């Protein structure tokens, strides 16, 4: 009786309106991936967040600023990928082509719930910036989507490593000459000089770690707001924290999902993407440097490409310059 009672709690709630808060799950390949839809569903426009990581949670992007300023304009769908965020399950399959299938099914489910006429915009950030073009290049997947928003994305892992190393070296040398954080930069410069960017996965991981670390050494980056907004997200969204930690460790340490991304030639197939595209980048992003934005501009098949660089941002302009970031994004969505 208890089991029947608990099963009946899983009620289907499909809301319409300007202030919607729905949670539901996509069951795929043994995983149950949570999807939360918040905001103005009546606008018939929906931003689908394809999160970074791999292993991070999409709902971390939802904070007070987004609730007050963005969800009123259109709806946002936050979905957690397999082995990420609050995704639950008891299976093991981490083949990256399945992530592409998951995203397709998330979009199909969203369209089924909120109407086939709802315009979908997919926003890939960091690792999500690999997954999104990977998905868009496949079959007729672009038919489901109205626009592509790429935010500091890692669409080409190999090029990414080379650009990160180059940026660490050039910035590091300048900082050493200027006598700022000399010891810390010297260690990084020495490491970069001693290793080829494509030497091994360990070198790649170390470059990535350095790239994340140096954001705190660069005075131009607006750092203060990140921790506050992260706390906001944890508080507002009642995150299952231990699930987040377990999945983060699972994605990065156990499944090593990143490794597979080196074998997929995204740049070569960018010509297939004909969608309106918005490229948003932090000027001081060492993790996914602005050179990756240039690579997209050079290779994409779309004629409608808009770009915006945030001068006080590193890898996460949505947290570092939220006002400018979300204004650029909402203006673009409104036009498309």
């Amino acid at each position, binding site marked *: 009786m208890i089991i029947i009672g608990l099963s009946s709690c899983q009620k289907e709630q499909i809301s319409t309106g300007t202030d919607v808060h729905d949670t539901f799950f*996509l069951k795929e390949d043994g995983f149950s991936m949570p999807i939360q839809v918040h905001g103005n569903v009546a606008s018939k426009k929906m931003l689908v967040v394809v999160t970074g990581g791999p292993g991070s949670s999409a709902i971390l992007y939802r904070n007070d600023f987004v609730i007050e300023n963005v969800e009123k304009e259109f709806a946002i769908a936050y979905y957690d990928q397999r082995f990420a965020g609050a995704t*639950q399950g008891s299976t093991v399959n981490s083949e990256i082509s399945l992530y592409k299938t998951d995203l397709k099914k998330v979009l199909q489910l969203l369209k089924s719930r909120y109407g086939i006429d709802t315009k979908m915009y997919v926003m890939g950030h960091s690792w999500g910036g690999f997954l999104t073009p990977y998905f868009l290049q496949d079959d007729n997947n672009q038919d489901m989507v109205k626009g592509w928003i790429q935010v500091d994305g890692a669409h080409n892992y190999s090029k990414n490593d080379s650009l990160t190393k180059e940026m660490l070296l050039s910035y590091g040398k300048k900082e050493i000459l200027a006598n700022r954080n000399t010891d810390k930069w010297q260690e990084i410069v020495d490491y970069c000089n001693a290793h080829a960017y494509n030497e091994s996965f360990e070198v790649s991981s170390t470059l990535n770690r350095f790239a994340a670390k140096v954001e705190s050494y660069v005075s131009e980056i607006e750092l203060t707001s990140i921790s506050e907004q992260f706390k906001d997200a944890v508080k507002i969204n009642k995150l299952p924290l231990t699930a987040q930690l377990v999945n983060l460790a699972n994605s990065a340490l156990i499944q090593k999902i990143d490794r597979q991304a080196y074998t997929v030639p995204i740049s070569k197939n960018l010509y297939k993407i004909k969608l309106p595209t918005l490229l948003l980048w932090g000027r001081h992003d060492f993790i996914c440097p602005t050179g990756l934005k240039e690579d997209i501009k050079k290779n994409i098949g779309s004629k409608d490409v808009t770009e915006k660089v945030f001068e006080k941002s590193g890898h996460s302009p949505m947290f570092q310059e939220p006002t400018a970031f979300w204004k650029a994004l909402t203006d673009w969505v409104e036009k498309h």
Partner: protein
Amino acid sequence: MLFFVTLPIFQHQTNIYIMFKQVKIILCSLLFVASNILAQAQTEKIKMSSNIKGAYMGSVIYPGFKLGVERPYKHIEKTKRSGKVIEKDRFVSFNLGFYQHKTFHDNLYFLVERTRRRTAPSGFFVETSPGIGVSRTFLSDATYKVDDAGKVAKVSGAGYTYAMLSLAAGIGYDFSKKSDNRPYAIYLKPSVFVIAPYNSFVYFRPTVELGVIYKPKTFWTKDVKEVKK
């Protein structure tokens, strides 16, 4: 991150000989101590009632409950030099627990714990309870499947069955030590449980129990080995 325990490798026979000699000395010492203890202890059978317990069980900020029965299997009374009597009770407890985490899951579980409780004459007690069980989660909200043709269907009763391990340590106060008219105790017990296999790994969750143990005079009685030292 996995940590492996490595055993030292003895490369020389002399080392092995020394090791066996040391093991022999330790075993003999343990036997000597154990035989002394046993010689002093008096063992008999007594009839003891099982206890009933109920608790609010919060998983961080998410509410839940735990109901259970403690079935005794051993009672030890140890008289100290000061004359104070320390009671040590051993139970096997059968528990039904539940918590609700909105936007994540509801978890209903059955847990068998082996409780070791040490009660001072004042009534204060400490206990440890490792446990093993089975958990059935229910996803908090509607769940869908999408087939390869893009057809969407609702899944009923979505959730998972997991194996469960738990470790808990708590403190409490037994009112019955001071008065027979108050056959109950209160306790506070933090614990961590682990469910597996969870996304090819494990999922862990801290919980805190705040509960009451009711000690009826006769309920599901059992002949229990009583040891007096």
